[in-house]
């Protein structure tokens, strides 16, 4: 197949799409609506995933420092923990700060214990990877000056479990949605091509080879998919950029953050475009094939 022929097929595909205006429009709008759905859910799911990550990353190890330890020893412990592999950050909190927190949470009833504070100084340690939390905690436990190390074992495991389930459900939903979208788009293209089976048969009867008949249809599938992706890309991009700008300030000091607009939204756009084009081309290819046996 040379360039001239490809040009002919390209032109043919555009003419045919225009002459089948109504059907083309129906196909394109089905693609549009489906991809819009995919886009919106992808954005939501991936942000939820980010939220789960953020929450997981917020898990801390609380190291109660031995009451019988002096300041130098405390500093040594602090530095040692900071240099540990797998540790991301260490935050020191005096027993006074701890009591203040307690009072804030439990009311002034406890404030009469201010004279004789029974609490410990504390190191709050964050692991680089939340999955390492346990390992890090156990390691610290062996250090001198660490009285008690806690990281909410049961609670955190429960949280991790919950987040994992959510993430898996999210992935299943996304995959299901992608499959559904694939099916719907190729189904629509199939139906529109079936409506043109007699055209395909006539072409074959006049001596066209399979590829001669097929190529314009494949180009047409490509256009339908690409045009169907235009609106979803525009809408998802604009909406997310706007939403991100609005929401980010209110989340300024929170653990949870939205995904940055770039490059995230470009990736989504790419997924939508590729889905549209690939499904359009494949759907067209497979549907035409059925009617080529003449």
């Amino acid at each position, binding site marked *: 197949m040379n360039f*001239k*022929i490809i040009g*002919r097929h390209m032109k043919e595909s555009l003419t*045919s799409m225009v*002459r*089948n205006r109504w059907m083309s429009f129906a196909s394109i709008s089905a693609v549009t609506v489906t991809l819009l759905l995919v886009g919106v859910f992808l954005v939501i799911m991936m942000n939820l995933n980010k939220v789960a990550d953020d929450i997981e990353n917020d898990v801390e190890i609380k190291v109660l420092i031995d009451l019988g330890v002096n300041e130098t020893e405390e500093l040594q412990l602090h530095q040692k923990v900071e240099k540990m592999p797998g540790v991301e950050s260490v935050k020191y909190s005096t027993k006074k700060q701890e009591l203040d927190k307690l009072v804030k949470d439990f009311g002034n009833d406890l404030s009469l214990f201010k004279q004789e504070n029974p609490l410990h100084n504390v190191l709050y340690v964050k692991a680089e990877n939340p999955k390492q939390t346990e390992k890090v905690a156990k390691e610290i436990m062996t250090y001198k000056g660490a009285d008690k190390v806690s990281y909410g074992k049961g609670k955190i495991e429960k949280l991790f479990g919950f987040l994992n389930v959510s993430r898996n459900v999210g992935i299943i939903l996304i995959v299901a949605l992608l499959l559904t979208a694939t099916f719907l788009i190729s189904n629509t293209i199939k139906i529109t091509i079936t409506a043109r089976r007699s*055209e395909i048969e*006539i*072409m*074959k*009867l*006049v*001596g*066209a*080879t*399979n590829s*001669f008949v097929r190529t314009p249809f494949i180009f047409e599938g490509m256009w339908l998919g690409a045009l169907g992706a235009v609106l979803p890309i525009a809408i998802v991009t604009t909406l997310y950029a706007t939403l991100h700008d609005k929401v980010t300030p209110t989340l300024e000091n929170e653990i949870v953050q939205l995904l940055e607009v770039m490059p995230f939204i470009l990736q989504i756009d790419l997924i939508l475009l590729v889905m549209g084009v690939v499904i359009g081309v494949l759907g067209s290819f497979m549907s035409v094939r059925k009617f080529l*046996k*003449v």
Partner: protein
Amino acid sequence: MIQMKNVIKKYPNGIIAVKGLNIEIKQGEFAYIVGPSGAGKSTFIKMMYREEKPTSGEIRVNGTDIAQLKDKEIPFLRRGMGVVFQDFKLLPRKNVYENVAFALEVIEEKPENIKKRVSDVLKLVGLAKKANMFPDELSGGEQQRVAIARSIVNTPKVVIADEPTGNLDPETSWEIMRLFDEINARGTTIIMATHNKEIVNTMRKRVIAIENGQIVRDERGGDYGYEF
């Protein structure tokens, strides 16, 4: 050029439309296929360009048995033949020009040649002025002439025409017949199923009569033969 041996065609619904055909048509011949409605003329014709595959028997076109043809080879068989289908089979979304040009695009003819050739052929069938119209804007006879134009545009070795004058007035019919005769004179084989007694009896050629799926008569320079 076309030989059939013991060709039988049984359709999936059980009807045996062709019951053991033996025939040879030589390059350059002009043959009418006549016979009553439902006799099997179209089936006979359709097997020549492999729209229908024979249930059994042998069909040789230029020596190769086309019953054995691979799917890939079929388009090349058809390119050597110009077919006028009984129901025209025009592409509904292509205009007259494009419908005729399609037969040339298929063989990857150069665009500049296509333009010239299509215009010439449309002039021959009297549709030069309607080149930009779509099939559903044409009268029955005009559609039929587009089908005829498409069948001859790539100067095939054989023209196979199924009832090509059924929707034409006598004058136009004769113009088409003169066209076929001319083409035939230049060496093209013409095979034409027809019910037109006047044409068969006036322009004397070989007459193959089919009844009930079998050849009942095969005469050179014969007449239509059915009286009523």
